[in-house]
């Protein structure tokens, strides 16, 4: 057995030879090694102390061509295929991997919204989350829920569940806000690393994150507790297997409501209208490359 720890015991090797089911320590002094082992276990426990919360949102499936309602109050959601927000799926996958790699002791998924949000929480449980929390918001009120409200709800859950790492998707593909993670981090006064494409838990109290920025990549080291938002390239999410979907039905799905959390949805914005973007004028097919170049030249687009 080789134990490596980036902090204290970089080159320590503990040899345990096993024969016929009996363990024998190859070591001059049993007490010395047991002390070292205990210290190592102590560190391991510290690693394991990560309690990860993943925030997931139920959105219209990414492949659906959305339609704006005739009264311009929003988009048609009834009878439309919904799924877990793709970025949240990536955040979820990363958290589950942290558990598999023994960095995280527990992974909790949370979603705010109408009862239909429970579908994606069950999905999260099937993927490997230990517990799901559904913060129920009725459909009418949910229309007024903004990233700031979600951040406040998550802040409550973080306190209740004694969480020290929150993973979110970088943005929801419906409102395209890209705000909740940053807002949550602000409310908690924690470190933040958004647009993560690589997350390394390489010390008990720190996480090193590679972020996708406009001109390339950037690395930051965040002190835990921290809030991280996932970018596309962080990982490839797994699929839920049928046995795991069955097992997920037995896992805890806790329901909470806004009153219990002491949160009121005070609107900060009012939607005046939702409209379709102006259509582009109909284009034309050209027959040859020469014709294409001629058209672009006559439009003054190329020399």
């Amino acid at each position, binding site marked *: 057995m080789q134990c490596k720890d980036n902090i204290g015991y970089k080159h320590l090797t503990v040899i345990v030879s096993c024969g016929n089911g009996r363990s024998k320590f190859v070591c001059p002094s049993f007490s010395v090694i047991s002390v070292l082992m205990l210290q190592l276990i102590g560190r391991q426990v510290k690693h394991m102390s990560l309690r990860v919360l993943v925030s997931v949102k139920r959105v219209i499936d990414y492949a659906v061509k959305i339609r704006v309602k005739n009264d311009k109050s929003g988009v048609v959601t009834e009878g439309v295929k919904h799924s877990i927000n793709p*970025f949240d799926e990536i955040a979820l996958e990363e958290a589950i991997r942290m558990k598999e790699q023994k960095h995280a002791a527990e992974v909790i998924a949370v979603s705010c919204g109408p009862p239909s949000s429970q579908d994606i929480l069950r999905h999260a449980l099937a993927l490997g989350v230990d517990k799901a929390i559904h913060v129920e918001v009725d459909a009418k009120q949910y229309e007024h829920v903004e990233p700031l409200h979600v951040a406040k709800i998550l802040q409550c859950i973080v306190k209740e569940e004694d969480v020290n790492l929150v993973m979110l998707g970088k943005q929801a593909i419906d409102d395209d806000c890209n705000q909740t993670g*940053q807002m949550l981090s602000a409310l908690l006064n924690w470190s933040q690393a958004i647009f993560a494409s690589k997350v390394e838990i390489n010390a008990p109290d720190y996480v090193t994150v590679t972020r996708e920025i406009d001109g390339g990549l950037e690395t930051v*080291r965040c002190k835990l507790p921290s809030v991280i938002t996932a970018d596309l390239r962080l990982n490839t999410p797994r699929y839920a297997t049928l046995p795991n979907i069955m097992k997920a039905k037995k896992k805890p799905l806790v329901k909470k409501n806004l009153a219990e959390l002491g949160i009121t949805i005070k609107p900060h914005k009012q939607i005046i209208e939702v*409209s379709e973007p102006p259509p582009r004028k109909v284009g034309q097919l050209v027959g*040859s490359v020469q014709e294409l170049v001629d058209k672009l030249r006559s439009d003054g687009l190329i020399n």
Partner: protein
Amino acid sequence: QIGQCVKRWQSSLVLVEHDSEKISTASLSAITAASKLGDVSCLILGDKCQEVANSVAKVNNVKNVYVTEHSALRGFLPEIMTPLIIACQSSFKFDVIIAAATGFGKNIIPRVAAKLDVSCCSDVIAIKQSDVFVRPLYAGNALATIKVLDAVKVMTVRPTTFPPAGMNSGNATVRQGPVLEAETAVSEFIGQELSRSERPQLTEAKVVVSGGRGMKSAENFKLLYDLADRLGAAVGASRAAVDAGYVHNDFQVGQTGKIVAPDLYIALGISGAIQHLAGIKDSRTIVAINTDADAPIFKVADYGLIADLFEAVPEMIAILDKS
């Protein structure tokens, strides 16, 4: 007509993005947006930014420039910048806090909004009144007109929809910005790995040539670079091309990559998924070359050519070289 409906006594604060040498073009667009909302002040934070501050003072419509230099501001960490922006806000009580919707702006602006307990408008594409803004939803397939009820409006604006402010008639005074108080840092900037290119920047280029899955390999992108160089174009890519490893992530154009609005966008071997179209729909002219006549890209293309790009692109290069 915006000027008529906006109350002119408002004041706005622009958080300036820079690389220690010059202000970003995106921030110049943010200044244009801010000037529609009232008197513009600029806040410049960094480990080295006095030069940038002096140049921002010359930007049209900028009234005040506040600058804070500190070694801890290297890497522009949001945890360190936010308290400074809040301090600036407490002193001057701006009505609007604004930045361009770039990686920089998206990282910090929502954090500032939460600290002020106000909402945030992301990626605003139009300013209708002092408190009414338009922003895209669902990958640009719907536009929401929103009235912000908070007293302080915090937002990011899409740079491609606001022209960059000129840099000749400004006459602002550069003043010392908020002082960075010593505090325990919760994060640390380790470093950056920037992809350097001689070509124009993707978000600022007049012409963009993008490749998709149809490019088939990273080596084949050479063909696309050859075309781009003849057109003085920037190079972009679809998510499929990035995921396949043909080009680096920061080439990605689309809902979750970069939003571009060049005069000419040439899509090579790109089918035109909703998420990609979100990033190019405001281009003046879209050209698509694809073998699949049913590819959705042809629905938005002004000029479409159903052809094998490996034949069409060399032919196009040959025609361009001839003249």
